[in-house]
């Protein structure tokens, strides 16, 4: 049952972890490797040890939600991944993709509340010695940033000079009502992070609108549904003079970044609003080496964002120029 599950980061996460398990995101590690690398650099600066495991697989949630196959394999896959974290590390698990976070949370919730499914999953994975007990806590790195906001603020070396940044929270984090950080309709914690980095948060009317990447793009409704929908979102951002949009989901990042030229071809915009992961933004402000931030993966070029914050032109190699 939903309760207004808005809690403080302290209530949700507890204290700053010394070590955490980072869940690999398929889309993140392939489309935007800079996201994963930025997060690792940030956590290094915050003195948090990061553990990943090559035995972790895709969460398999995306195609499940497209009804590509029935839930049994995804429940077993989730149980397997989570049991790896439980059995080998005993650490909290952090995702950097709203999708991974959402699917793992939803599927683990189903496993924990339906003993028949838990048994089915554990029977399926027991052959390799895995057993999921429902103990591991699942979080998203954006929650950690907010928990450690004061520390991050103190470590800013490249303040963002009032850059006008707008948030895209995405859907799969705030739709989870099993304990989230902020109100699902009126969240403000990303905006607080921008302020801490010296940027100007911009509110635009369609800020809470979905990116459409989830199932919409999966069904290749790109033309008839996702594109007009994204067009409305970007029109609203453009009206407010947004210079940059951040995401906390590589899936959203693909939608907002890679669809822009296609939108332009269909007569929406043009927008030319660069999009990056919130981790890459924080990494910029904390002085992480530009190469490690991986902006070469971006479809929409950064459009002078780096110059605005005092980093000269040509400071990185743009794979698109």
């Amino acid at each position, binding site marked *: 049952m939903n309760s*207004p599950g808005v809690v403080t980061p302290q209530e949700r996460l507890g204290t700053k972890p010394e070590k955490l398990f980072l869940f690999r995101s398929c889309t993140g590690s392939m489309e935007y490797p800079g996201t994963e690398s930025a997060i690792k650099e940030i956590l290094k600066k915050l003195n948090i040890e990061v553990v990943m495991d090559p035995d972790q697989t895709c969460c398999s949630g995306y195609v499940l939600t497209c009804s590509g196959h029935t839930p049994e394999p995804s429940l077993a896959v989730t149980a397997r991944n989570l049991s790896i974290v439980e059995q080998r590390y005993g650490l909290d698990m952090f995702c950097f993709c709203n999708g991974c976070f959402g699917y793992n949370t939803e599927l683990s919730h189903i496993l924990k509340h339906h003993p028949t499914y838990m048994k089915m999953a554990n029977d399926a994975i027991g052959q390799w010695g895995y057993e999921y007990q429902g103990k591991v806590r699942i979080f998203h790195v954006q929650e950690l940033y907010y928990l450690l906001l004061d520390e991050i603020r103190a470590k800013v070396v490249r303040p963002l000079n009032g850059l006008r940044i707008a948030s895209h929270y995405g859907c799969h984090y705030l739709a989870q*009502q099993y304990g989230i950080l902020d109100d699902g309709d009126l969240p403000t914690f990303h905006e607080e992070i921008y302020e801490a980095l010296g940027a100007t948060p911009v509110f635009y009317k369609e800020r809470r609108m979905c990116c459409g990447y989830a199932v919409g793009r999966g069904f290749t409704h790109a033309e008839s549904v996702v594109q007009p929908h994204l067009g409305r979102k970007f029109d609203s951002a453009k009206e407010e003079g947004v210079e940059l949009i951040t995401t906390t989901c590589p899936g959203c990042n693909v939608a907002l970044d890679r669809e822009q030229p296609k939108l332009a071809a269909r007569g929406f915009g043009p927008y030319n609003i660069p999009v990056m992961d919130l981790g890459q933004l924080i990494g910029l402000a904390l002085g992480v080496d530009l190469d490690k931030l991986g902006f070469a993966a971006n479809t929409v070029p950064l459009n002078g964002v780096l110059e605005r914050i005092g980093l000269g032109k040509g400071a990185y190699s743009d794979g698109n120029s």
Partner: protein
Amino acid sequence: MGIHKEQSTLVIGGGAAGIEAARILGQAGYPVVLVEKSNWLGGVLNQLASSFPRWEDPAQFVEPRVKELEKCAAVKVLLESVVSGCQKTENGYRVQIKNNHGAVEELQAGAVIIATGFDLMDLSGYGEYGHGAFPNVLNSLEFEAVLKEWSAGQKPQKAPVVAFFKCVGSRDRAKGYPYCSKICCMYTAKQAGLVKDLLPDAKSYVFYMDYRASGKEYEEFVRSVIEDKHVRYVRGRPAKVLPEDGRLLIRCEDTLMGVPVEVRADYIVLAAAIRPSQGTAEMAEMFGLHTDPYGFIEPEPFEPVKVQERVFLAGSCGFAVETLGALQQGAAAAAQAMAVLNQAD
């Protein structure tokens, strides 16, 4: 058998229900002490710009009652006072009543009537509506204050669009309470109709799932608001409010048509769920009263107002109720108090 008229009845709460209970007891010559935490009597009635179903001014009801209580020798009214402690005794309760200067007086009460009323639910959990975040998104009592301003002549320059959302926090198992708060359909119709009376060029929309008008003259009242005062009722619970160009954009579905709609408004009035007041919670704990899972004081099975020996409830501390019901319960509680004060030794 003696008539224990000397034993006082303590009435906690000076709203409609408390006033009625004190009045009936006083008329019959039973000593009453009426304790009220604010410095006026009448409770929520004083905040209302009008009333249903007859559009009467609540002040016309409250003022004569207050005078009657002042003149009644048996009634002692203690304003700016609260019950700060109580101990069960053989013949009732020994209570401590503390006033706002910190002075405490003791009272031996043979019967206690709890009439501590309700509060509106805190709506900060409804980010989709923005109460507390966007200007001009008000709860129903906050809007009564606006209606009072408009009635007093301080009208807005441009005729506004006022949108009323019913069932905010009520009939809501997700973020609110599953129950229906009973009075909101009626008071919303009243508020929406009053807007049109005060500002004929204004527009009132009421967004509803149902309208519940079960009472004498209630259905006629709502129909007259729709048909004679031209308030537009749209069936659909609003999904989202967004600020836009200094106004408020409402996204909703007109479920009777099956079409999503957007409506622009200047004021949004949220009919917040009725909750037991802070005072109700405190008295329930102090007297060890049985409450339901939502905090409303529960009477004993098959008893209309008796909560436990010598303790009775009246008004919305027991559940949401309109003024007439509060008065009826106040009178019933007074009668029960008289009965207990007269019972055989």
